[in-house]
């Protein structure tokens, strides 16, 4: 699907000015050219001229990227470097195959409808054995280290029953209205079902009939991030099929990363596919959706009408801000909610360092990147840091837990839900 040759023209647009060195969160920690876009573009040229091959070292360097897109955003010559890097990961998989754990996860588990829920159900039974619960948080700690899971890591507990199992395929409120699809995504289904429930409640309160196809699955972004396009294709087809007979013309996606991938990633990767085009046109993002709906702010709420307003700051998920240019809408919502005072942190758009499997392969590096974000959050003295991506939530919760700061991580939708009980 991807060939090296078309990358040539894009790679040659890089004039090596080096500006990416000033914005790349990975380079800030590693300080090696191979960590930054300019170096990686040079390695692509090296691949083109066959000076280097798909070696272990090269793979490592191409995996050391968050895909946050800061380089692309700041490139004076419009080189879409982070996309080039992802494309090379695809080539790496084509040449070298997937690593064993990824092969297992993407090809065996994600590719099977039953295996993932089954494994996670087993996991939820075993988690008491493997993990110890952290008091006052909804998270768990490993009792001992496992491959790819650092013992220090705080992991949200697997929530059973899963979100999609809690409801029927069609949920309506007191009044009947327009039909809308809800895409769960893995994190909401297995880890944060309460965000799904809040979304459902807000939708039914606004007279929507919510359609929740049971056979929807992972959006495929983790597989794309690892260069496994075969799995992406498979998952894409499943998701399109899951929603194809529901008759909805809008599908709301609470996780910013899933939203980006369904809306923008699918059509970019499958440009010829008409079904993809129709599907992606239906995808909507909650903050813009609820803003348009527009009646949330007028309601006052006992929970929030206090003397002391809650201090809230917002962390921009890369996929929403850089890829989709959605950053004003969440702020508009935060500014209009009663009982809330919104404070901007210093660099709200700096990547938190999660970046899917990056966080598992390079846990220590990921935590170093997170440190800057935590500093910025701490400086606002906020009660809540709101965000719109479940990946960012996992990362921020882990960091805040270790620092023992007072700030709590909350999904924008949950904040909305608290105002409108």
């Amino acid at each position, binding site marked *: 699907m991807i060939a090296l040759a078309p990358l040539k023209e894009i790679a*040659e*647009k*890089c*004039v*090596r*000015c*080096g*500006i990416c*060195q*000033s914005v790349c969160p990975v380079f800030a920690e590693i*300080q*090696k*050219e*191979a960590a930054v876009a*300019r*170096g990686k573009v*040079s*390695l692509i*040229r*090296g691949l083109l001229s066959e*000076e*280097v091959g798909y*070696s272990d*070292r*090269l793979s490592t*360097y191409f995996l050391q990227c968050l895909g946050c897109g800061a380089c692309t955003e700041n490139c*004076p*010559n*419009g080189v879409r470097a982070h996309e080039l890097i992802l494309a090379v990961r695809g080539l790496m998989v084509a040449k070298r195959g997937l690593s064993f754990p990824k092969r297992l996860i993407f090809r065996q588990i994600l590719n099977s409808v039953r295996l993932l829920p089954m494994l996670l159900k087993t996991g939820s039974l075993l988690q008491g054995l493997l993990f110890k619960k952290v008091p006052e948080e909804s998270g768990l700690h490993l009792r001992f280290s496992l491959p790819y899971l650092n013992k220090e890591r705080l992991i949200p507990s697997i929530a059973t029953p899963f979100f999609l199992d809690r409801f029927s395929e069609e949920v309506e409120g007191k009044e009947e209205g327009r039909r809308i699809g809800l895409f769960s995504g893995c994190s909401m289904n297995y880890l944060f079902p309460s965000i799904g429930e809040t979304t459902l409640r807000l939708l039914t309160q606004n007279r929507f009939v919510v359609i929740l196809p049971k056979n929807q699955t992972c959006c495929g972004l983790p597989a794309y991030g690892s260069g496994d396009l075969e799995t992406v294709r498979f998952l894409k087809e499943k998701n399109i099929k899951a929603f194809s007979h529901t008759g909805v013309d809008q599908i709301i996606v609470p996780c910013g990363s899933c939203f980006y991938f369904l809306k923008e990633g699918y059509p970019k990767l499958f440009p010829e596919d008409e079904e993809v085009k129709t599907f992606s046109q239906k995808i909507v993002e909650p903050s813009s959706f609820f803003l348009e709906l527009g009646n949330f702010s007028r309601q006052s709420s006992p929970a929030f009408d206090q003397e002391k307003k809650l201090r809230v700051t917002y962390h921009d998920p890369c996929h929403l801000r850089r890829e989709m240019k959605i950053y004003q809408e969440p702020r508009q919502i935060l500014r209009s909610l009663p009982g809330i005072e919104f404070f901007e942190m210093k660099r709200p758009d700096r990547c938190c360092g999660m970046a899917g499997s990056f966080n598992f392969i390079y846990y220590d590096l990921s935590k170093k990147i997170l440190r800057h974000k935590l500093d910025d959050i701490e400086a606002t003295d906020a009660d809540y840091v709101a965000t719109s991506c479940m990946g960012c939530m996992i990362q921020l919760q882990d960091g805040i837990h270790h620092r023992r700061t007072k700030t709590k991580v909350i999904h924008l939708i949950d904040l909305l839900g608290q105002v409108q009980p």
Partner: protein
Amino acid sequence: MTEERLDGKRYGTPSRTLIRQIENIVGKESILSAKEDLICYGYDATNLESLPDLVVFPKAVSEISEILRLANERRFPVVPRGMGTGFSGGSIPVRGGVVLVMTRFNRILEIDRENLVATVEPGVVTGDFQKEVEKLGLFYPPDPASTLYCTLGGNVAECAGGPRAVKYGVTKDYVLGLEVVLPTGEVIQTGVKTAKGVVGYDLTKLFVGSEGTLGVITKIILRLIPLPEARRTMMALFRQVEDAATAVSKIISSKIVPSTLEFMDNASIQCVEDYLHIGLPRDAGALLLIEVDGDREVLPKYVERIDRITSELNRYRFEIAEDEKQTDALWRARKAISPASYRLNPTKMAEDITVPRNQIANFIQEAKRIADERKLKIINFGHAGDGNIHMSLMINDRDEGEKRRAEQAIEEIFRLTLRLGGTLSGEHGVGLTKAPYIDLELSQMTIEVMKKIKMALDPNNILNPGKIFGK
């Protein structure tokens, strides 16, 4: 842009013993030797490339001394490097050898508020340093375009400038003293930590702008000034280049020295308008971006005077930024030139010639004629206040004929520059890109003196060979 491989006499692949010797000096973790890494350290911001044989990240002065001693013993080249953002190939290891990456020397050692002096290591990023001193109400003015991602060491080695040079001067005007490891490994201190100092030859000035050929800088003593209280930005569009040039002369002769006086010619304006669609008049001859700074109370007077001066000329439009947002909007056109220019052609041959301020209009007219005669696309923009013009030929370098014509044009433009009383490079340095042309500007004797200095300090020519004189 295709890279150009350089043929210098290379040192050759370092032997195992040599690598082990260097490992013993800096430690294994401070060396990169895999092909994948070498590929990432063979370039700067020019389109030139030549791979090193080894990349070394020293963290102590003694390590640099030892490496240089070893280099003299084994005769391999050593090339100092900061963040690799230079515009003349200064940090490219054209003959292979060791690239000495100085980024681990990244501490600000002291900011002395009473004496307005700071001591820094060379790997500190210029923009980071500026942010730190500005927190204390102090100011380090040199602002090359790469401020946010270049190092102070690189700035000193190339004597970097920037838009503020018109009022505040360039890097050399702020360097009071240095610690330098000589090519033979000895460490010396130059200069002073005081405002004045005349004991012995001014070696500081010798090392500033020496492009990494005379020593490795390990410490820099910088002069600071108080941070101006406020700043105002204006933009003026003129029908003719001559009007803009007259405006520049009149502003300066009216005793106002703007902190920035940036200029764009018609070709740059058209190019940016095609790119941004912000309503710049396509037939405007020139655009001036003017910034004044100083005490808050005095700025309105400057703005008014500049408004009056430019209004007496053939001007299209005059805009004054009222806030931060409007300031950014005015800078937008100037900052878009680089990406916009690549719409003309894929390869840029960029020069940074400098002419006396009152020759700018002449230069632009003549340079355009030289380019037109050879059917080449040319854009001129840059620092009008100090006559430093970024003249760029935008060419398709796959067209051999066009490439040859461009090379001829560059040489002729250099001759024109010198005829007008200018210099070949205002702030980028000679490095590799201008090395073939220095004898146009410097006499044989002058070059001889420079070579003697180089030989005296670096008898085996191991430090950054092939630069400045390498024809």
